[in-house]
């Protein structure tokens, strides 16, 4: 938020407004359970009902019900054709199959994990570094900022095309350069399953860096400059100022970045899908779910089981995140 002095005068509610009263009540004294706030007439009750009810209905209808349906479907065999009566209940068979006779599943789990670790280590740190640099009001800072952010706004098809130009074995820029500079034999960047994940992670990191940079840049702009001045007066160098003063002040941004990175790692999908539909070394859970459910396969039950596994992994992170937030709020 803007500092108090410079913000335009915000039109505050008239003193007689019931909201203002209830606000004041809440701030000064613990609100009695049965008193004041909700006794303010029908209008307010409708307002509260709407403001809680609409989002609740949206969350319930668009998040919880589909999630629940996925869990239910994961115990079935269904090709998505015909009515619900064509669903065949097969218990946990889909899960057993996924863990025993579905070869891409193991690689997908570990690839998602690698994805997460790499996103955390390289692009996040790099993005933070770029943000700190750009925050120093370099000449042409806005230009750099746009360049680094560009990958985030490019369309999926374009990104796939760009990296194909670079990584193609026969006609790619990278192999041409390696052959020219080091006389190296062509490297199969997309096809070698020991290599292609990392090649793709460079592309994914290229995109993620810009995103993280922007988040930190916004965070850094909000850090009170007097903090830095104080640190400077105390004799801290730029590195010390950042690690001991600025970085801790960025706590809310750091949490956002953690969440964004985890979500990105679990959702990672588009680049591998463009390259080879998430096969041959590029298996990711999201790609497997898509292959099974959305693609031609229509293996709704099996794909749902995979999606549930993905959901469970996300739940672990969600619980950690919510617990952290709640602890922070309590403090």
């Amino acid at each position: 938020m803007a500092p108090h002095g410079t913000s335009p005068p915000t039109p505050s509610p008239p003193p007689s407004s019931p909201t203002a009263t209830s606000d004041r009540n809440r701030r000064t004294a613990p609100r009695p359970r049965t008193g004041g706030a909700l006794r303010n007439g029908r209008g307010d009750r409708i307002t509260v009902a709407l403001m809680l009810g609409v989002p609740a209905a949206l969350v319930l209808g668009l998040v919880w019900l589909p999630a629940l349906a996925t869990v239910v479907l994961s115990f079935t065999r269904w090709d998505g054709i015909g009515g619900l009566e064509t669903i065949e209940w097969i218990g946990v068979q889909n899960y057993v199959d996924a863990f025993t006779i579905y070869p891409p599943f193991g690689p997908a789990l570990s690839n998602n994990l690698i994805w997460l670790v790499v996103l955390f280590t390289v692009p996040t740190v790099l993005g933070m570094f770029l943000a700190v640099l750009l925050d120093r009001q370099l000449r042409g800072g806005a230009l750099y900022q746009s360049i680094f952010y560009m990958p985030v706004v490019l369309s999926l098809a374009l990104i796939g095309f760009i990296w194909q130009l670079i990584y193609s074995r026969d006609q790619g820029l990278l192999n041409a350069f390696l052959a020219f500079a080091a006389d190296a034999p062509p490297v199969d960047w997309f096809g070698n399953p020991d290599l292609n994940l990392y090649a793709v992670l460079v592309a994914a990191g290229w995109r993620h860096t810009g995103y993280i940079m922007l988040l930190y840049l916004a965070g850094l702009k909000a850090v009170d400059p007097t903090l830095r001045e104080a640190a400077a007066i105390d004799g801290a160098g730029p590195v010390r100022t950042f690690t001991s003063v600025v970085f801790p002040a960025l706590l809310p941004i750091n949490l956002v970045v953690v969440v964004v990175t985890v979500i990105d790692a679990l959702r990672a999908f588009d680049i591998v899908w463009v390259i080879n539909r998430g096969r041959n070394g590029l298996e990711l859970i999201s790609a497997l779910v898509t292959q099974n459910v959305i693609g031609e396969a229509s293996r709704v039950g099996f794909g749902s089981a995979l999606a549930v596994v993905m959901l469970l992994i996300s739940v672990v992170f969600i619980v950690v995140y919510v617990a952290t937030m709640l602890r922070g709020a309590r403090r």
Partner: protein
Amino acid sequence: MHHSDRDPPALRRRTLLRALAGAGTLGALPALGGCGADPRNDPRRVTMAFNRVQEMELAGMNDLLDVFHAATDYTVEVDNFEPNSYQESINNYLQGTPDDVIAWFGGYRLRFFAERGLISDLSHLWDGPLAGSFSQAHKELCTGDDGKQYLVPYYSYPWAFYYRPSLFAEHGYEPPATRAELLDLCERMRDDGLDPIGYGTREGWPAMGTFDYLNLRINGPEFHTDLANGDAPWDGPEVREVFSAWAELLPHHQPDPLGRSFDEAQTALLRKECGMLLAGLFVSQALPEEEADDLDFFVFPEYDTSVGTGAVEAPTDGFMLSADPRNPEGAEALLTHIGGLEAQELYADRDPQALPAHVDTDTASFSDLERKALELIDGAETITQFLDRDTRPDFAAVVAIPAFQRFLRQPDDIRELTSDLERQKRSVFG
């Protein structure tokens, strides 16, 4: 640092509510638009789903419809779809409110849609106005498990080994007719510094071509069908022999096929970096016009004299009739028109690789390559479809492609690969 206790910026309750109300109204607008006269009941209107989007394909369809419009009272409305997403969403599409006439392929999934009642029986067209228009092999492709026809075939394109005659002439190569001759030719090409067989299967599906043809040549078309239907075992000696033959050919392919897209392999053929490429006639679309003569093909060589080379892999496109068409008469008139000689030739004029399915096709205006390709299809004892059209899509996409890719990485563990395939097949076919 402490968190600010200041109020959030003044987004006032009423403003918010007003905005919400506005958004609600917006959401209701399309519903209102749905009222009024419903053009769908117009008895002259026929709708059609078409899954080709290239310029020449659209132009061909336009010409074909112009003739239809001139000859009848009907107006055809075409919905164009991008082919890949069309293929992926066809299940849902057929269950919604599909167009009356729907582009699709011959093979397993046609039979599957027919069995599920998602499309209409067209056998009265086959016995009536279209009688005698198509070969027996095409008829079988369009026939469901109940013996009735469900597709009007439109065009096919054969898969074969395509090569540049100028390159063959330069080195004095002869198109091989048998397994031994093929291997011999590969050796010679390698000695001349060429990659004998182009290979690009990054997308997964192109690898099916090699498997299909080896299987057709070693075990015959009946086994191909049994295998695709899930009846024959994947871990038996038949399939293992196919993989062994594939392993024998593999060193003669371009290296690193898994990182190369099919287009790139096609480029290698056109640049004469590789000697031949197992592909469909669509390769000719990529050839520059002034070199159009410099492309030819030979059929996949014979592996077993008792099996021969009578089976041709020729994916066939056509049109189906939806289960509950809004305008059945108009749709059937359109299907009859599409199955007619004039329409098929008009389309092929614009997109020459689309060889008309009609038996009376006049090949006078065809190039030598197209004529030869059409003769190959007409003379085929059996026409098979590409594995991903001939079997359950979940098996093709989720099981077969990853297994073939694994084979290309590790060609030496055939036994384990095939038993793995069989286990997954049982899980998929249930």
